[in-house]
């Protein structure tokens, strides 16, 4: 009964959610065409650059380095970028939340959805890269939407946690950028997991990005179905982080309103 009424309460704000989503898309993609073009080109340019630098080093372990790197890069950019932009989403809309009751997580959801659209765009760009690098196409590619949904759930939960603490920790953006450097090195974006010694490989498995990249590379680079273990691990991570994010956000919702 309580949950049904809560869901009805959320549906009530669907029109408002569409409005802020539309405004976000306009601001991000339409009003800044040069920024949009650079955002689209940057991963491709990085792919070209890292292929020149690293492809020889991992020749024996990675067959299709451009595709290998691109798969890791777009996942990391999505996970990092969605949280980075969603962190301030509630604070930027303080004028609305201080005037009337609004479900505040809608702002975070809108921000993460905008990043997800970019992720879908890059996933589509994988197809010509696969054609160009003669990667095998398979029915396993039908799992890509599921992977995007799982990553979206993780990104949403993670963004909620950051958005909940941003108003009280002013330097959170800087701390997050520093943390992201470590996260980048700890994620197999430009190197294969095989070069990590087996004794310490388990430490890397704590990083959810490792599992998402493993699934995507299995589908795109190898053209085969990812293992059930990998899918279950990725799903568990996504669900846990999303539930944790909702819990933390709800608990802190009242406390951060004074700082917004």
């Amino acid at each position: 009964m309580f949950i049904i009424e809560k869901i009805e309460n959320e549906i009530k704000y669907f029109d408002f959610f569409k409005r802020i989503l539309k405004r976000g898309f306009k601001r991000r993609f339409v009003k800044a065409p040069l920024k949009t073009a650079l955002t689209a080109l940057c991963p491709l340019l990085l792919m070209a650059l890292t292929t020149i630098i690293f492809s020889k080093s991992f020749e024996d372990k990675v067959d299709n380095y451009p595709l290998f790197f691109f798969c890791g890069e777009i996942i990391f950019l999505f996970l990092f970028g969605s949280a980075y932009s969603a962190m301030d989403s509630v604070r930027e809309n303080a004028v609305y939340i201080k005037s009337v009751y609004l479900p505040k997580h809608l702002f975070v959801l809108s921000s993460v959805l905008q990043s997800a659209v970019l992720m879908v765009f890059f996933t589509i760009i994988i197809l010509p890269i696969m054609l160009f690098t003669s990667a095998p196409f398979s029915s396993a590619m039908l799992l890509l939407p599921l992977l995007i949904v799982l990553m979206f759930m993780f990104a949403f939960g993670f963004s909620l946690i950051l958005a909940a603490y941003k108003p009280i920790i002013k330097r959170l953006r800087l701390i997050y950028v520093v943390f992201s450097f470590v996260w980048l090195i700890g994620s197999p974006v430009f190197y294969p997991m095989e070069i990590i010694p087996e004794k310490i490989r388990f430490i890397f498995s704590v990083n959810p990005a490792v599992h998402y990249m493993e699934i995507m590379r299995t589908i795109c680079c190898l053209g085969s179905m990812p293992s059930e273990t990998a899918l279950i691990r990725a799903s568990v991570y996504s669900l846990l982080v999303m539930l944790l994010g909702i819990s933390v956000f709800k608990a802190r919702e009242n406390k951060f309103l004074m700082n917004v």
Partner: protein
Amino acid sequence: MPPFLYCEHYVSLKGIGMKGKPMTTAIKAENVSLIYNVPPKNGVKDFAARLIKREPLLDKIEILKNISFTLEKGSALALIGANGAGKTTLLKLISGIMTPTSGRIVTKGCISPVFAENKGFNPSMSVKNNVYLAGSMHGFSREYMKKRIRSIVEFAELEEHLNTPVKKCSPDMTSRLAFAIAAFLKTDIIIVDEALSVCGEKFCDKCVKKMSEMKANGTAILFVSYSGEQIIKLCEKAMWLENGEVKMTDSAENTCKAYNEFYESLS
């Protein structure tokens, strides 16, 4: 119940209270308190000193203390008190913008608050688009607002400023618009927090008349004003808040009289 599903402040949309019984009251507040935890003045130095002395790390400031009241459908309650008494904070708790530290607030239906300092308008958008935005923030569709926009703008006397950006409107114009939007939406509770203080006398009378009509149609009204005349005209009861506590709840006339006598005796 998992923490993300539990909510102390429960907004009931179907008029059914927490225990499954139908509600005739529009607002019920039970022992509502709000405490702010404020960090010490000297930051890290004070934190460290308190940690060593094993004292509480944060200062607690009680904003509201055990406020209880009920408001029936079709009635009006005025909140009076000096600056800093906690009136706006209480209204924010009732409208769901904030949640209380302890106690419970149960409301029935759609709440439309009109605050003096924050009307929820996007300054770069026009008056017309802000009306649609305000409607969507209250949960109403664009089609619903399209049918009402003419009445809203006519009531607010802003027919010539439909396409004017809100940042170019005066505070008087934005207050009129904010009230007009709240008055013409299908709301069950309307909260007016000193929003009419910048408006002219003629418009204030118009608003009081409109609120009386809304009251007759079953809307509950929470009204904050420094004008005793408006309060007595509109509200049956008034609640006097002093330093976050309820000092007196009685008929509007008696409470306003007591409040005026108290402050006259101080001066």
